């Protein structure tokens, strides 16, 4: 009996050890370092405990860290809206028996397997005001009035980032929705149709309630991705123009690059706290809904 209880632990030990060594321990150390003045000279001068000084610096200095946090949250919310709604619409369209849907699925999913750096560099070129493909096409179509400084106008730059991010991410989100749609029994729709429900009513009363799981999964992935966003911003704008598109991670990267590891860790700790709080809220919401279902 006792042996049976211990036996499964042998299977857990290796992955658990790896998880502790490569994830929990560094995370805990990162949190610890955020209370120190660890920097590139620490090898000579030592690392000292500074309490909450790094956090005070983040929240009180005029270096834009707060706007970085704000931008991160804004990106998390908007990028999810921009991806989830179109992805759901496309998934429903493809599920409805569109001709050539296999091809569309593949085409829509393809961008999500491309590395962000490649996407960023391609779009940086496409979105160039003077020589970019987008403005050139607009000119050719006599739609010059729609031309924009896509990556340098303060009012447009975020929209460009959301657009590129959506172009890459919609296929992935759509795939999760398609998987969810496939699990909805056809009989539900048949019953609704017999009752005289139109498309919107079927969507409202059958599809969406049955897709709650997929929506939650997409939300969890989308929110954690949004909070950690780095590559797309770094490659497309490097936080610019000026500091307009700086996010938490670009600031953390800059600080780390300048050898201010303690400050960089403090920013990452803030990111960890925000992610943890939102994560707990989502898990609680999901658990509640599962209980209700």
């Amino acid at each position, binding site marked *: 009996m006792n042996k049976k209880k211990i036996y499964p632990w042998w299977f857990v030990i290796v992955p658990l050890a790896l998880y502790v060594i490569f994830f929990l321990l560094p995370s805990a150390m990162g949190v610890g370092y955020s209370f120190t003045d660890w920097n590139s000279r620490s090898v*000579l001068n030592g690392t000292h405990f500074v309490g909450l000084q790094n956090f005070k610096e983040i929240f009180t200095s005029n*270096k834009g860290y707060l706007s970085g946090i704000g931008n991160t949250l804004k990106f998390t919310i908007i990028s999810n809206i921009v991806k989830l709604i179109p992805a759901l619409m496309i998934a429903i369209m493809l599920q409805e028996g569109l001709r050539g849907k296999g091809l569309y699925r593949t085409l829509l999913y393809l961008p999500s397997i491309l590395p962000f750096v490649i996407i960023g560099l391609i779009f940086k070129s496409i979105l160039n005001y003077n020589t970019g493909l987008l403005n050139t096409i607009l000119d050719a179509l006599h739609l010059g009035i729609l031309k924009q400084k896509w990556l*340098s106008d303060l009012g447009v730059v975020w929209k460009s980032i959301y657009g590129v991010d959506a172009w890459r991410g919609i296929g992935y989100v759509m795939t999760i929705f398609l998987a969810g749609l496939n699990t909805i029994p056809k009989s539900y729709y048949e019953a609704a149709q017999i009752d005289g429900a139109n498309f919107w009513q079927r969507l409202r009363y059958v599809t969406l309630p049955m897709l709650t799981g997929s929506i939650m999964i997409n939300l969890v992935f989308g929110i954690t991705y949004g909070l950690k966003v780095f590559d797309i911003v770094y490659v497309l704008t*490097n*936080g*610019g123009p*000026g500091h307009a598109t700086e996010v938490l991670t670009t600031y953390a990267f800059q600080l780390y*690059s300048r*050898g201010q590891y303690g400050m960089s860790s403090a920013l990452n700790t803030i990111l960890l706290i925000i992610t943890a709080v939102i994560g707990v809220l989502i898990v609680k919401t999901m658990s509640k809904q599962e209980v209700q279902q």
Partner: protein
Amino acid sequence: MKRKKLWAVTCAAAMLASMTAGLSVNVYADDNTKDFAGEELSILVSTGWMDNRYDETLERFEDTYDVTVDLQTIPADQYSDLLQSKLATDSCADVFWIQSNPFAIESTIVDPEKYCIDFTGAEWESLMPETRKASCTYNDKLYGLQVWNNSPEYVMVYNKTLFEENGWEVPTTYAELKDLCAEIADTGITPWFMPGADGWQHQLAFFQIGGVYEEATPGLYDALNTNQATFADNEKMLEVLNEFKELSDAGYFGEDWIGTDSTNMSNEYGDRTCAMAMANSSFIKQIKEDTGTEDEFGMFLIPLGDNTWYPTSPAGPTMFGYKGTEHEDLVREFFNFVTTTESLQEILDNSPAYTNLDVTDENLEQHWLPEEEEFLATVDKDKMNVSVLQNGTKYTNDYWMQFGQDMIAFCQGEMEANDVLANMDTNRAEAAKTVGDANWE
């Protein structure tokens, strides 16, 4: 008898064979390339610091030593961050570059003892002029190799033919510059091509005229280096920043200078879509080669702040050997190889942007441009002794990119001019604190 003969012939053959073998071993022993066959030398460099000018030399190095060179060229706006990360995580390439100046080794590499190979006593030490050595040494130890040109750097390069055709005069004050820009803009030509998207070029307009700040506040450089003065509230600096913004607001830098990089700069000159830009004198050669234009080009000093000072600079991209490398001998050989007359001539000849190399090698054939000689003749020699601001003051160059971002934020109305300067003070103070500079304690 026959057996004796056979024995004698065998012995003679053996002797001959061993002598030949011995000879071949000796020849091999003299060949210092023998130990490196199959090794790989990685080089981490920012765009523009090696470009194609080193290609031929690198190829010859690979052939000579039977090694491969892994050249990792990083976009300029990402290089500094990447290098710092690589150094901090002990994963740097065998050879790495920094934009060095007399303070940069301490502030950029931070711990040269840990990260850099000590080249003190290397044969090529005497190749570098004393002015450049300051950017390559730290605590009397030689760490870097700087092979850079001595041409006028980042002055105004203008289309002389275009100016003459339109009767435009070279401006010597800011007021004249502004009037000229207005005239040029009226013709539909971009007056001053400014590649803001590069992230590192536009701030040159502020920093290359260091002499003007020193002239306005004598002793400013020393005061900045000893924490007795600040960038913030410096009237001349504020004046220059505001002038820059005024030109930006008027559209004289082009329709989207913040989103434009320098990729197309020589074509802009060649197609006459721009009249002037900040560039090295040797860029003239590149414009002509890239575009085949018949136009003539000239240079004048950046007139912001009514500047009359020449941008003297001992700084330049500098090559270092990474101490953590597994191929230290190969790295040393590479430095020796690059500094032979043959390699230097190759580097110079293969670079459209260079007209000379600032090295003490009498056998090197320089290619000074007449435009350079003409421009240098117009500059007051007494106004060539103040270094550009970024290299004459401590910790300033380390925040080059941040200052550039702040300048753009200022031009877009997101920041005040004095905040741009105050941020530089804050950043410099942080850097000073990090290195334990007593002046900032």
